[in-house]
């Protein structure tokens, strides 16, 4: 790892990370502050809710029977804020780390300094980890405080921790996917469009699985299936298989990134 490179990279993407953290936090805070208003008008909401077709409710994870508990309510929105919104930012950030050096041709500067390819990958990945961890921690704190304020601290904090851990692992995985894709590209470039496509596409697969049994095979193509948002189930907690999926997939992609980047011709 090169501390010099790490510090520069941390600073380089700081603005974007602060922006996305504030946006995500704003949405979380806003949604949770709506909770008490919704509780007061539950009967009206129920009327509205019953007009939405069943399949659509399932597709978008709207389970009204969960909405009388704050975490059940929050879990519905959580998917959009962390795995999708922060996930899109993560995959784009992951794809920028190496590709920006190639696209802006600064790779020639960087690689002619005494720094190994491994050190470059390590510093870039650590930059990514710190940024994504920062976004997720901030989002978690805002969710925690909002839930606390709304319910007078009458909720299970462990559930919130588990939920946000899944969210973080999802962002991390998306970022690693973005990073790995640019390692494979002959002339790397940031994959903003493709990145967002991957996040929304895999979310769409998840929807399909929920709608119909016929799409069960998509299970293997979407990490959303491994984010447990069924927060009100009795045995909600960390699940070894789900954790292994995230850590295993990310781990394999990280190792492959080191292996391929070490041998990659930098064409600029």
């Amino acid at each position, binding site marked *: 790892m*090169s501390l*010099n490179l790490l510090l*520069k990279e941390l600073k*380089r993407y700081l603005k974007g990370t602060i922006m996305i953290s504030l946006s995500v936090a704003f949405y979380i805070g806003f949604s949770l502050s709506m909770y008490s208003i919704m509780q007061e008008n539950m009967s009206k909401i129920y009327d509205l809710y019953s007009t939405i077709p069943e399949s659509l409710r399932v597709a978008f994870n709207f389970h009204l029977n969960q909405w009388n508990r704050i975490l059940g309510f929050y879990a519905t929105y959580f998917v959009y804020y962390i795995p999708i919104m922060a996930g899109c930012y993560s995959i784009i950030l992951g794809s920028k780390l190496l590709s920006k050096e190639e696209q*802006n*041709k*600064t*790779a*020639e*500067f960087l*690689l*002619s*300094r*005494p*720094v*190994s*390819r491994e*050190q470059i990958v390590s510093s870039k990945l650590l930059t990514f980890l710190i940024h994504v961890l920062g976004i997720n921690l901030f989002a978690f704190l805002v969710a925690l405080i909002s839930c606390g304020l709304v319910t007078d601290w009458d909720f299970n904090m462990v559930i919130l921790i588990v939920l946000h851990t899944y969210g973080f692992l999802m962002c991390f995985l998306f970022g690693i996917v973005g990073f790995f894709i640019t390692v494979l590209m002959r002339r790397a470039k940031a994959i903003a469009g493709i990145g967002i496509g991957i996040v929304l596409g895999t979310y769409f697969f998840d929807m399909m699985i929920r709608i119909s049994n016929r799409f069960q095979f998509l299970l293997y193509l979407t990490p959303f299936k491994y984010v447990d948002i069924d927060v009100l189930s009795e045995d909600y907690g960390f699940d070894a298989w789900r954790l292994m999926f995230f850590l295993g997939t990310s781990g394999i992609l990280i190792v492959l990134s080191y292996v391929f980047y070490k*041998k990659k*011709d*930098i*064409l*600029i």
Partner: protein
Amino acid sequence: MYAIETKGLTKYYGKARGIIDLSFRIEEGEIFGFIGPNGSGKTTTIRLFLSLLFPTSGTGKIFDYDIVKDGPKIKKMVGFVPSEVHYYENMTVKELIEYSARFYNVPLELRFNRLVDAFDLDLTRKIDDLSMGNKKKVAVILSLIHQPRLLILDEPTTGLDPLIQNRFFDILKEENEKGTTIFFSSHVLSEVEKLCHKVAIIKEGKIIDEDDIDSLKGKLLSRVTVRLKYGAKDITLKTPGIISIERNKNECSFLYQGEIAVLLRDLSQMPIEKITIAEPDLEEVFMHYYQDDNRKEDE
């Protein structure tokens, strides 16, 4: 131990040719010119030295370190000036120099002020706002700040004005006197002549000649143009070494390889009003080698 030693170094980009079977050695302390037209493989060679690219076959060593395995160790000892300079646009000149120096763990004070003064640089400006020439100055400073044992220069003078070029050459000579080896890639013959001890000529990815600068000069062509006096009849040029004569009214232009004194002696017998002898451009220099190729093919 050689500063640079390559054996059969070859690089293909897929099927496209990069360089083919380059073998040469550069002694420590030498200034080695690497000359060839654009696209001949000069930058590919340099990028292999810096492990931006990896060879298709063959080996390369810099101070006995392998260019594939020992990249970081090599780069600790190397200063590099690229042909086109690309830096992080949001940084100021000072930030960039400090950033670069930290990779080498050298105290900046060592040479910083002297170099910045020599090149007359405004440190507070953003890289983005610098002209191409000023960016190049930054590149030169970055290459020298850690006192490298080997300087790799890829067309280093493009963008530098003549005054700064001279200052740059003075610094290079000074560095060389202190023992720094210099690998100088260029397509400008006069630069290489001014500075280098030895020269390799690269054409279409292959080294076609490698020699001391003095023997190479003997092989080089000059572009000679003579204007005849008004009313003079056409002249016949018989001096050996004259090739590809072009005539245009009372002007006559040709390439000449050989002793200039001999040519002048012959020309002095003729009704000549004006004569210019210029360095040929690189393409013309290569004609000599093309002709060699053709001759071999004819045989």
